[in-house]
């Protein structure tokens, strides 16, 4: 039941995208997002689609897995599409009472819908091909410059990777406690709102206790291994750019240039 969360879930297959340096993927995702906001013509979206399809094929992750992430934004998607559809002024195509659909509105809402869908799929590709640890490693390294102005980059990324690391554990724990209480006749589904909220107590109390227990255990284990923050700490797997990363950067530059060109020419 709660296991169906895709955003931020790693899909373990071996592909070029999986082997790529996380910094490349972070940067690539950023470029893709920027390019989506640059796009305002059919040709631009065609190029973005081409790029996205290429990335999906390269990642070897089943397409159905990426679409799952879209479930979370269905509501947002509906709202933004319908707002754009009905509230944009312009050449009228169709009218139903006070609702009117214009050519510009149709165009805007299509583009807006595509943009949102591509945004989610694009970032899903990154999270599906990068383990949370790689991701925070990449962030730490990319944001390293901020250390100069005393931003605790290492501490933040350590907290992030611990938080990410614990999501699946806590999900599993929730599942286990839920089942244990269901074995004692608990019912988490039926009843009105107050009854439902009340039925969460036997789930939440043990979950919090276990989270605190795990936190103290982890702190102890880190201290036992002399953890003292990021100063002078080396990595077991230092990040290094390979040939595929250089290729990817080249491709990204070309793609971005293409998008800018389409925008200026058309």
């Amino acid at each position, binding site marked *: 039941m709660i296991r169906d969360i895709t955003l931020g879930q790693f899909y373990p297959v071996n592909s070029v995208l999986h082997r790529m340096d996380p910094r490349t993927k972070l940067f690539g995702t950023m470029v893709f997002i920027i390019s989506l906001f640059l796009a305002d013509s059919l040709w631009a979206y065609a190029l973005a689609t081409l790029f996205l399809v290429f990335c999906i094929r390269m990642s070897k992750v089943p397409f159905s897995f990426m679409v799952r992430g879209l479930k979370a934004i269905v509501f947002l998607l509906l709202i933004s599409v319908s707002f754009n559809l009905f509230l944009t002024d312009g050449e009228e195509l169709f009218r139903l009472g006070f609702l009117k659909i214009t050519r510009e509105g149709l165009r805007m809402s299509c583009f807006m819908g595509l943009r949102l869908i591509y945004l989610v799929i694009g970032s899903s590709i990154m999270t599906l091909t990068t383990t949370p640890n790689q991701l925070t490693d990449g962030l730490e390294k990319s944001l390293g410059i901020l250390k100069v102005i005393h931003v605790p980059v290492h501490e933040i990324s350590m907290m992030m990777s611990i938080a990410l690391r614990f999501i699946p554990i806590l999900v599993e724990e929730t599942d286990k406690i839920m089942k244990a*209480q269901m074995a004692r006749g608990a019912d988490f589904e039926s009843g009105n709102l107050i009854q439902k909220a009340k039925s969460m107590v036997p789930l939440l109390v043990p979950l919090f206790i276990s989270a605190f227990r795990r936190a103290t255990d982890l702190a102890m284990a880190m201290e036992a291994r002399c953890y003292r923050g990021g100063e002078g700490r080396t990595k077991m797997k230092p990040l290094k750019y390979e040939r595929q990363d250089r290729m990817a950067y080249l491709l990204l530059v070309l793609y971005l240039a293409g998008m800018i060109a389409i925008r200026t020419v058309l």
Partner: protein
Amino acid sequence: MAIKVEGLNYIYGQGTAFEQHALKDVSFEIPDNQFVGLIGHTGSGKSTLIQHLNGLIRPTSGTIWFNGTDIYSEGYSLKKLRSNVGLVFQYPEHQLFEVDVFSDVCYGPRNLGLGEEEVKERAREALGLVGLKEKYWEQSPFELSGGQKRRVAIAGVLAMRPEVLILDEPTAGLDPRGRDEILDQIKELHDKQGMTILLVSHSMEDIARYADRLMVMNHGEKAFDGPPREVFEHYMELEAMGLAAPQVTYISHALKDAGIPIEDSITTVEEARDAILGLLKRV
């Protein structure tokens, strides 16, 4: 016939890279008042199997009958089933949540919709069955020792008066004394209350001592099923599965190989003692 399982298959994450065939065509019957031991190395499908028996996991294919009724037939109440087939999870003390021991044990029977007096009556009875002294009943469950917490958790399931009790490694992480106490109490539930017991364990010694029957799971399949002494005869195959027979079984086999005419299929220390003393008398 308390529980009957036929052709049970369970596949995790079907159609994804995480796909895992956790149970492959498992079938068995457990008659009333049997004490069954279930062993298997980590990831062999034991935990998945027992969660099927009270309807917490729905099988991919296959049928489960409780007292002759298919538990997924129309209108069958899974809640009722869960009160009849009590399941005690691993580290059950992690599910405690109430302010005091007594209220926590009341949680199960209260969920069954019983009257307040009946609920309290059952809680008192269950706490008595696990042998927890009355002075602890008003304490917070978090102030108790590990073994005591576990008893409270087991009482929480017993308070629903199940006919079948399934326990997933009830002695994990306990000291030897706490372990023996818990197991003796389970044995008593079997002998005196006539409960059907399914005990998942990693300790071959415990299984040999308590169980009438032993089932072995390996890679999601039922590998052996029979009286413990018969199953432990296959100790070579068990080793290949990452399991073992009780240590005395090895000693008796070594003695036999050394030419001493000791009897076969010794599984407990007491049996070994009697057999060796018997041999010595004859000399």
